[in-house]
């Protein structure tokens, strides 16, 4: 049973078995990931790419093997297309400052969507302040789906870049990114996809998508916190200036000038999160061993079950009912503030997220301050969904 692979799931909270439904905030890690991190520190601890000694060689091999595992997971042409980053936030900021910034003139436009996480809004607002560019937004409808009717206007000769979330962390909407990329490319607009919530649930093929950049968050896909990768097309990465200056990203330094290392080292200044990268590689291997299709199929079953179960709760309203969804449910219950629901069901061992989920514009659209969010992973069970529903009914009983 795959659930057994995740040690943190097996505990009691407030005297009840833990029901962990906060996977969109951070997923649990399987033992193989924990072991990979521990194994590095216990047996191979050394800095990478710079020592002639045995441990440094082993650590370097493990780190680069991890890059290879990530490349296979998202079908990148080569491991050299991947830059290790701290997560999607760093990936977006890196692309904004090293790829997009030099392409912008005052009045140019950057296109995002209404479904973005703050991490795919704020870096672009900063860039707009720096350059005089404008931020444009693809609107959404009541179902939490993007409205593509006005794309021809939104993608115009001033549009210099588009960055769109693949799967909404707040509503679960799976966006039609392949279609968006094709439309953008028809107008020579490069595209970045924020894949934080996609790689844990879906088969991602960056070559099939033909995106220019794709960000992966490690801790959302069963890897360590503070780990992630940024995929970029080789021609872009070669042409981009470095993001951070420092060690490792240079080939020669004098006081007069420095020359930069080749990709991906050019973007990896300083000693990286070595253990995190190795652990993320183990997470990618774990997912490929389980099978992304098997994960997606199991989560489809769970999503349908959860949707029906939540619908049975009177006075419960699900926000976001997109046709294509991952197993994420934002919901409200009449007369009970989300924060109270979160506290009460925690008493029954159920962990959900409450608030705006770093997507304030989505909740401004729905004119509510936030929601409860239950986000599932393949290791959740139908029984856990039943406990969620029972605990929600307990919360309702308390407030009536």
């Amino acid at each position, binding site marked *: 049973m795959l659930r057994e692979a995740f040690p943190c799931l097996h505990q009691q909270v407030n005297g009840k078995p833990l029901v962990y439904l906060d996977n969109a905030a951070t997923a649990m890690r399987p033992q193989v990931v924990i072991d990979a991190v521990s194994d590095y520190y216990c047996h191979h601890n050394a800095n990478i790419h710079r020592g002639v000694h045995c441990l440094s060689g082993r650590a370097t091999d493990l780190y680069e093997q991890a890059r290879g595992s990530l490349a296979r997971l998202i079908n990148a042409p080569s491991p050299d297309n991947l830059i290790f980053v701290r997560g999607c936030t760093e990936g977006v900021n890196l692309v904004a400052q090293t790829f997009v910034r030099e392409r912008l003139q005052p009045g140019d436009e950057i296109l995002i969507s209404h479904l973005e996480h703050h991490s795919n809004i704020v870096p672009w607002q900063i860039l707009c302040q720096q350059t005089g560019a404008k931020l444009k937004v693809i609107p959404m409808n009541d179902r939490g789906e993007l409205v593509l009717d006005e794309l021809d206007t939104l993608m115009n000769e001033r549009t210099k870049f588009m960055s769109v979330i693949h799967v909404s962390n707040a509503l679960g909407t799976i966006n039609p990114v392949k279609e968006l990329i094709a439309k953008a490319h028809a107008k020579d607009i490069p595209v970045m996809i924020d894949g934080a919530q996609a790689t844990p649930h879906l088969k991602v093929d960056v070559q099939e998508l033909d995106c220019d950049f794709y960000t992966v968050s490690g801790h959302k896909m069963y890897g360590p916190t503070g780990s992630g990768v940024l995929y970029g097309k080789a021609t872009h990465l070669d042409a981009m200036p470095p993001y951070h200056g420092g060690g490792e990203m240079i080939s020669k330094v004098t006081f007069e000038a420095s020359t930069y290392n080749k990709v991906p080292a050019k973007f990896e200044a300083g000693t990286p999160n070595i253990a995190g990268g190795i652990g993320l590689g183990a997470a990618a291997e774990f997912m490929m061993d389980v099978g992304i299709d098997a994960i997606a199929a199991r989560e489809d079953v769970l999503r349908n079950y959860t949707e029906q179960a939540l619908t049975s709760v009177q006075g419960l309203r699900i926000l976001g009912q997109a046709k294509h969804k991952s197993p994420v449910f934002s919901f409200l219950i009449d007369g*009970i*503030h*989300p*924060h*109270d629901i979160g*506290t*009460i069901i925690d*008493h029954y061992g159920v962990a959900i997220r*409450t*608030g*705006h989920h770093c997507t*304030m514009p989505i909740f401004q659209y729905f004119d509510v*301050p*936030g929601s409860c969010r239950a986000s599932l992973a393949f290791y959740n069970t139908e029984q856990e969904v039943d406990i969620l529903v029972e605990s929600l009914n307990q919360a309702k009983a*308390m*407030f009536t």
Partner: protein
Amino acid sequence: MSDLNKLYKQQVLEHNKNPRNYGEPDHWTHHAEGLNAICGDQVHVYLTIENGVIISAHFAGDSCAISMASASMMTELVTGKTTFETLHLFASFKQLMSAEGLPDADHVLGSVACLESVKKFPSRIKSALLCWYALNAAIYGQPTATTE
């Protein structure tokens, strides 16, 4: 009684359901907004202060039950008090919510002391405190307050 039932005790649920002094009054002299954006609590505090005495205290906003009940009880407690007394009550309530605790809380804070059970839920203390920080901001002429 479980900790959860102590948190959502009858007084809290009752004040949440039927908040006292709720809604923006026609006349007020002092106002501040308390906003905890991350958890979604928002409390507007409206005061009418004459000669250093709070003649009336109202609140409005969309908040969790803990925040609503705290604000409702607070407006009852501070009505008729001087601003000086009110600032002392604010300090006492903060002490009640701290690890130190407040001796003789029932005597000092009246029914507001029943919120001591919130301390067992550290993530909710900021909900209980929000209205008090907004009250303090209103007295000092500051437009906003937060406890996040």
